[in-house]
């Protein structure tokens, strides 16, 4: 085996190892999110989940999405979450407490059914899905994403900005209304 070929196959092995570790961390932290009693720990586990997803995005050569994931999601959104959880205080509820037993059982059954559906769909189409595409150097770069946003997907871009504006205004309105109802002064 020539040295270049050896290095290439070692690189492939390394990518598989990192990918498997990130996928395992992703699934593990996902299960941790839904099984912690304290919302604060759940939010911290979700940060781990988002970070391991960013690793998966990087290995799929989606650099810009990975950067946005870490900055916007694991950074800004989760800080907002943690602030609200700290503001409301840690009201822990056990994941299995309350609610009829059959409801919990059927929730798990529905989740497993969803999983079985995915597995069947993947096995059914595994031959057509399992091909290696050739990707250009520009694939996933900020320049490429920006070009697509301002040319092919301009409408989606504009609608997204309107959605963000409406959500920001809605958040402010929700905050003001409750302050009036409880008699607190609105600054």
């Amino acid at each position, binding site marked *: 085996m020539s040295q270049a070929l050896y290095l290439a196959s070692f690189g492939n092995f390394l990518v598989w190892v990192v990918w498997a570790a990130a996928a395992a961390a992703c699934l593990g932290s996902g299960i941790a999110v839904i099984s912690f009693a304290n919302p604060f720990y759940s939010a911290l586990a979700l940060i781990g989940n988002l970070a391991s997803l960013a690793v998966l995005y990087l290995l799929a050569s989606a650099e810009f999405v990975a950067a946005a994931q870490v900055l916007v999601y694991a950074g800004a959104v989760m800080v907002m979450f943690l602030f609200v959880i700290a*503001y409301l205080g840690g009201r822990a509820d056990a994941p299995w407490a309350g609610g009829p037993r059959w409801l919990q059982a059927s929730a798990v059954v529905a*989740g497993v059914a969803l999983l079985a559906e995915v597995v069947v769909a993947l096995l059914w189409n595994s031959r057509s899905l399992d091909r290696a595409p050739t990707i250009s150097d520009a694939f996933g770069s900020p320049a490429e994403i920006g070009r697509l946003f301002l040319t092919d997907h301009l409408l989606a871009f504009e609608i997204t900005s309107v959605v963000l504006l409406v959500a920001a205004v809605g958040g402010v309105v929700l905050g003001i209304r409750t302050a009036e109802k*409880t008699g607190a002064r609105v600054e």
Partner: protein
Amino acid sequence: MIGPNVPWYLAVAGTLFGIGAVGVMLRRSPLIVLLSLEIMLNAGNLALVGFSRYWGASDGQVFAIAVMAVAASEVCVGLGLIVAMARRRLALDVDELSELRG
């Protein structure tokens, strides 16, 4: 190309979506329901990114970023609602909030 192909990404995305769905159906704290919703949205994003590489086109990543913006809006409104509920001294329990039931 090195690394796993799209079926592996889809398997992880599907499992993650199932985990999030179980969290939404099982948990009663609205905060954890929101966190589980985030997991489901991210599972969708992972499938988008995986298919984006399958086709070798960046369009899927554009929509992954659009989904991120929608998730941020959802968190903004959802957390606003939860804070409003807490200020009105309502129980933070999705099973007890049944005022709108007809």
